[in-house]
């Protein structure tokens, strides 16, 4: 589906995101596998809680990191995450 700022992403049913001190990173865990996330991927994914829409996620990120103009990056990442089945969209 086309992703807009109204889309609500949620980390997929078989996935879990958690902070791992030993790797100094967020990791995404799934059946018999894991991906180590870079900082921005981790920060976006942990906000994909099935409640916040993309607009809210962007606003939260921009406040937290005192940044602007993240919309294109966030949408591009959520697209990729959807292809990987890391997130479900509603």
């Amino acid at each position: 589906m086309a992703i807009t700022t109204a889309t609500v992403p949620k980390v997929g049913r078989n996935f879990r995101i958690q902070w791992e001190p030993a790797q100094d990173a967020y990791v995404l865990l799934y059946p018999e596998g894991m991906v180590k996330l870079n900082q921005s991927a981790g920060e976006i994914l942990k906000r994909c809680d099935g409640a916040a829409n993309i607009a809210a996620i962007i606003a939260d990120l921009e406040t937290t990191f005192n940044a602007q103009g993240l919309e294109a990056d966030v949408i591009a990442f959520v697209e990729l995450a959807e292809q990987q089945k890391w997130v479900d969209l509603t």
Partner: protein
Amino acid sequence: MTDLSEAVAVQDTAKIGPPLWLLAELTYRCPLHCVYCYNPVDFAKTEDELTTEQWFKVLREARELGSVQCGFSGGEPMLRDDLEVIVAEAHRLGYYTNLLTSGVGLNEKRIGALKEAGLDHIQLSFQDSTREMNDFLSSTRTFDLKRRAADMIKAHGYPMVMNCTIHRHNIDHIEAILQLASDIDAEYVELANTQYYGWAQVNRDQLLPSREQLERAERITNEWREKHGNKMKLFFVVPDYYEKRPKKCMNGWGNIFLTITPDGKALPCHTARMLPGLEFPDVRTSSIREIWYESEGFNRYRGTGWMKEPCSSCPEKENDYGGCRCQAYMIANDPAAADPVCDKSPFHNRITEVVDRAQIAGNAAQVKPLIYRGPKESLQLDRPF
């Protein structure tokens, strides 16, 4: 000849990453008798399974070092009555928990308790697509049980991850196996060709498929992918005997994998205990930290410093770390040799001879009766592979 006297390179703890993957082999006991079982052939000699508390200690210490994926396998892990409490402890510690099971022993009560304990995922193995072949290849009547296990796994909201080990006797049923996977709504399907360790090494000539069989099976798997898209993720793994470069075994020795055997030995991979001249530490007497960073068993083949020719001067050595140490030992009689799957290995002909034999249907080696895994056979054979 095997030379085990070389010095072990001193390792810099800071450069060794954590054991991200912990494989807990809870027991070697199993109600099935798979002809390709990866357990050591002499498994029946091992006694004294770790206790619940000893497993707790393993889980805690490995988690402290950074382990995060945890697999429970065996044998058949369902045979441990304390599986649920062990899973609960792993979940509490923050592991992602995977159960690798034949489905035998799974019932409503236990799967409910496992879900309650926080189990994240179940991988269910089948031997073939039909009752007749499944039961023949496992020498049990378990097909119907497995179908019921599949239903229960789904009913409890788990993703369906199906595994079927592929070999000469079931590879021509690949369509039916894919159909079975689709019937049970599998999301991930692993069609992994037998790897020749343990019991599979004993039955190697009977199990290695021909090139024609392999190509057909791969083609059908690809066609299925094209027809049905991404709904079922299919993984088809060819036997490394058909390759010219070895696999990057365990992603490198002592790099991310840590296996604990039912009797408490810590190994860099689940078959490493066959290697001669290496003492692998016992989790009852060593901490996971000592085992991972300091033991000789884990340091001996770490990185590339231990290599001999042709690996030591090979430009590809970082790609595959010289392949599998167990395969080097089983086939070249030297655990520090290049994996003979590599066509640069002076022993590569020992692989191609077996492959050549596999092209001639019905040759004498192939029609020998299969030896089923079992405690009696284990004690009779009395050897590691």
